[in-house]
């Protein structure tokens, strides 16, 4: 059982008649990385804004480290931090100066030592004295991340931190986050549209849609909920016997190319289909099976298939 660093109970936010967050409850344990996913407009950003105290909820409760956020705002904000690809630091001043300001705002002891350590680790030292607004997106993201770690937070809210990074820098950043989590037992609430990234670093994923939690599980657990795999068969000859066989068996399919058929099918039925087609003298030249991944879960939810997901 994890010691809980964040507990959200029945969080509800309504803007006029629009419900942005609809009575969601979840918790994050020490050292746990939780992904908050969902299509645009699902309520992720509003949830993060409420968790950071810049938007007030209509109802519900937030507890950090066992203390109610509303009543212990300073205590909680001192122990958490936030980074987003969509926020910047003060553009006219240098990263060093920005970090110095935030070190003071978080009352960091030995601030120069701390800034040195982080800038070394994130490889941002060479541009610490260039005005922030002259940095590339990748450099800014790393400076923002340094800002979010200045106060040795127990929990960091990361809103698409790798959104503007090239794959190499994104990979380095994820490795850094993984190390932090291991060494410092850092808890992270992570939003991203990159499902590979989420699968790599998140222990648990919460899917939001229309303000509600529609699924919550480990990345593997979520993908297992989709029972169908995508079977792609390439064959010689005409498509008629293939189409006839699949129609007889009531198996939904499509022909993306003249001699290729694509079938979404339960995994245990795959051998049966291959055997059946062979019996009809269909010569299969290539068989490709793609198991469902988190992206499929995301698409399923975004396209309104959450009911099916729940049933599974």
């Amino acid at each position, binding site marked *: 059982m994890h010691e809980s660093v964040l507990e959200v109970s029945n969080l509800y936010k309504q*803007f006029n008649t629009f419900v*942005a967050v609809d009575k969601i409850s979840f918790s994050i344990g020490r050292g746990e990385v939780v992904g908050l996913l969902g299509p645009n407009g699902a309520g992720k950003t*509003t949830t993060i*804004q409420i968790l*950071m*105290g*810049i*938007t*007030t909820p209509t109802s519900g409760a937030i507890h950090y480290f066992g203390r109610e956020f509303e009543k212990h*705002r*300073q205590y909680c*904000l*001192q122990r958490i*931090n*936030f980074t987003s690809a*969509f*926020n*910047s*630091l*003060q*553009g*006219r*001043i*240098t990263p060093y*100066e920005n970090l*110095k*300001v*935030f*070190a*003071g*705002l*978080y*009352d960091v002891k030995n601030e120069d030592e701390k800034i040195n350590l982080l800038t070394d680790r994130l490889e941002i030292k060479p541009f610490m004295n260039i*005005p922030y*607004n002259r940095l590339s997106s990748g450099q800014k993201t790393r400076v923002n991340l340094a*800002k979010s770690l200045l106060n040795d937070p127990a929990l960091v809210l990361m809103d698409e931190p790798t959104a503007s990074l090239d794959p190499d820098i994104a990979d380095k950043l994820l490795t850094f986050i993984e190390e932090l989590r291991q060494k410092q037992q850092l808890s992270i609430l992570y939003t991203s549209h990159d499902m590979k990234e989420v699968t790599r670093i998140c222990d648990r994923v919460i899917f939001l849609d229309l303000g509600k939690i529609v699924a919550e599980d480990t990345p593997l657990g979520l993908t297992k909920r989709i029972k169908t795999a995508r079977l792609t068969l390439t064959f010689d000859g005409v498509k008629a016997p293939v189409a006839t066989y699949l129609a007889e068996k009531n198996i939904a399919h499509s022909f993306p190319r003249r001699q290729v058929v694509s079938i979404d099918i339960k995994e245990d039925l795959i051998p049966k289909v291959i055997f059946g087609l062979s019996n009809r003298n269909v010569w299969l030249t290539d068989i490709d099976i793609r198991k469902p991944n988190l992206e499929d879960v995301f698409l399923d939810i975004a396209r309104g298939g959450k009911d099916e997901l729940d049933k599974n």
Partner: protein
Amino acid sequence: MSWTRIRSTLLQAWYYQKHSLEAWVDTIWWSFFSLILFGFLALFFAQSSGAEKAKSILVGFILWDMVRLGNEELTISTLRDIWSRNLSNIFTTPISTSEFLAAQMIASIIRSTAVFIVLSILAWFFYGFSILRLSWALPLYYGNLLLFSWSCGMFIMGILFRFGTRLQAMAWSMIIIIQPITGVFYPISVLPRLLQTVAYCFPITYIFEAARQTYLTGSVNIVHIGIALFLNIIYFSLAWLSFHRLFATAKRTGSFAKLEG
């Protein structure tokens, strides 16, 4: 209140000032060239209405610049953080609104005092005008004007938080609206009677009237200073309350989080 957090906010203002040409333009450029303009205007009027009376225009100018700078320190520096998309970073640290406002007010004292000293020296050098003729009342005038500028600044900040940057022009323009009716450059008696009544609702009207009187006669109108202080306390309290109310509404409606787009 944490002094460390206040000091860090001041440090940010200093770093910005150090790097930004427009911050220097805002601080020095307008003030310097306006001084030149009003100085010559005073010299022109001196030919018809007496040197000292004409130079009292410079009393109005220098003191008004303190109001302008005090107001802008609160509003423009906040806008700079909004434009940089940095405001939400600041308000997700443990800083309280009181600490944030206190830092802006201290910054405004530092900036306006520095400009005040420079302008006073230049006015003396170019036009033989001495602001020190306001004697021991000068800090009282200065304090009252700053208090009023903070009230305006807090109110405008609240409006910006609540309604967003589409109203950002208020940061510069709102305070200008009251300039013509508060007797900055001329006595209130020249205004139509209705406007005179409106003018006496503003604390700075009493200060400009009193400052001119001190400059021309050497006497200090304690009653005017007292009324100004009384009105300033009311204005400041209302501005403080309205800022907190507007900020709370902005957080409730989500407009604060949307400030940065």
